């Protein structure tokens, strides 16, 4: 600490500050609230547009990480400061997680205009961490103007990312759009843009056609593009389409992210109360009372939520 840090050391230290703040909001509690408030206070005085937050989702193996890495490289060439938040599931059994998205993203250790962080879903039981919205605010306050949040799309109505992001990009592989489509109805419906990645593989063009014709049935159908992240084709066009779609929508911004944070906190609190009621037997006692006609069903849920 005594000698003055090199420029590289200084950049690493500021990355460390952001990284530790993200860990703190992952842990939650009063310290986390203070950090989020501080970030919001800082952003309130900032000039310039709010950061753009793009959710990237889709089935495993579609090439999301590689594509996000390619998009980040392209955005850096345009001088934008880019961050990536990669979310992977925690094991329900051990609580551990294997976070492997960095394998697919080229490391650029000398570039302090980039930041990448992997987070596990921890207790959320969903495809998004409860801390993702808070982390997005911290990242924005640290001066990043474009943030990609990558999640494994769980299909169904797992739409936390829709709540949080300004824009949702759905990434499909070359075999996408078929039986997968039914499964992923929830996500397809809420995607602002769809991309078929691995466009160099056979069948990719047909996947684009399938998705276009499937989506054309609905109103306000999202655009379907084709990329090959490994070959770099279509990436510039995709970044441009994302920017255009974000402008068209004009929604989003910080209020959206704060709302997403509050929603996540409510879900976390409810889940915590439920776990506690299961652990100390209150849930079962309530259920028994209701089953035996000793107490009414109505009011039971409120009782559990009050803890």
């Amino acid at each position, binding site marked *: 600490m005594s000698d003055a840090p090199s420029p590289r050391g200084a950049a690493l*230290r500021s*990355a460390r500050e952001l990284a530790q703040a993200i860990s703190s909001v992952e842990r939650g509690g009063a310290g986390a609230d203070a950090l989020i408030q501080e970030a919001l206070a800082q952003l309130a005085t900032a000039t310039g547009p709010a950061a753009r937050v793009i959710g990237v989702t889709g089935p495993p193996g579609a090439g999301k990480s590689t594509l996000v890495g390619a998009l980040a490289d392209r955005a850096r060439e345009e001088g934008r400061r880019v961050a990536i938040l990669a979310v992977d599931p*925690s094991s329900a059994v051990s609580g551990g997680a294997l976070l*492997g998205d960095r394998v697919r993203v080229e490391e650029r*250790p000398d570039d302090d205009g980039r930041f990448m*962080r*992997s987070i596990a879903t921890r207790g959320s039981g969903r495809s998004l961490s409860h801390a993702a919205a808070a982390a997005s605010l911290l990242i924005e306050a640290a001066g990043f103007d474009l943030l990609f949040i990558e999640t494994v799309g769980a299909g169904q109505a797992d739409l936390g990312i829709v709540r949080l992001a300004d824009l949702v990009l759905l990434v499909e592989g070359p075999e996408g759009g078929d039986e997968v489509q039914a499964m992923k109805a929830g996500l397809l419906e809420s995607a602002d843009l769809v991309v078929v990645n691995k466009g160099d593989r056979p069948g990719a063009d047909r996947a684009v056609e399938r998705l276009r014709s499937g989506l054309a049935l609905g109103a306000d159908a999202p655009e379907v593009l084709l990329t090959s992240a490994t070959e770099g084709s279509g990436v510039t066009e995709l970044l441009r389409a994302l920017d255009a779609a974000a402008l068209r929508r004009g929604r989003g911004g910080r209020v959206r992210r704060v709302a997403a944070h509050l929603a996540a906190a409510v879900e976390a609190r409810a889940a915590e109360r439920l776990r506690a009621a299961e652990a100390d037997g209150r849930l079962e006692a309530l259920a028994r009372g209701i089953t035996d006609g000793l107490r009414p069903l109505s009011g039971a849920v409120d009782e559990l939520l009050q803890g």
Partner: protein
Amino acid sequence: MTERTAPIRVLIAKPGLDGHDRGAKVLARGLRDEGFEVIYTGIRRTTEAIIAAAIEEDVDVVGCSILSGAHATLLPKVVAGLREAGAADVLVVAGGIIPEEDRVGLEAAGISAIFGPGSTIAEIAMYLRANVRRP
């Protein structure tokens, strides 16, 4: 400080040029099953990339797997880089094939532990739980 509730975060890195990552993958998977959050970086990472990743991921431990014989130069660079970044509290451990006579020098350079080919996942997990420096 109360008892730690968040999982311990470990970066598993393969510095240097050898591409044998089976051991690193087995360890990554095994530590996940032990309840750790494991960030795996892939093969052939520069020490600069490993340091930057460790900082961004705010890990408690950096585990370097080395089979190439380049440990004597690479591992001390990781330790030094973390110190420069103000992250001297990150534990640096190594695994792989490291000759007995090199151990003393590596330990002097700040490598906390060296796990040879016979080490079990349970043993490594126990060591990490007992030795992470951050609450």
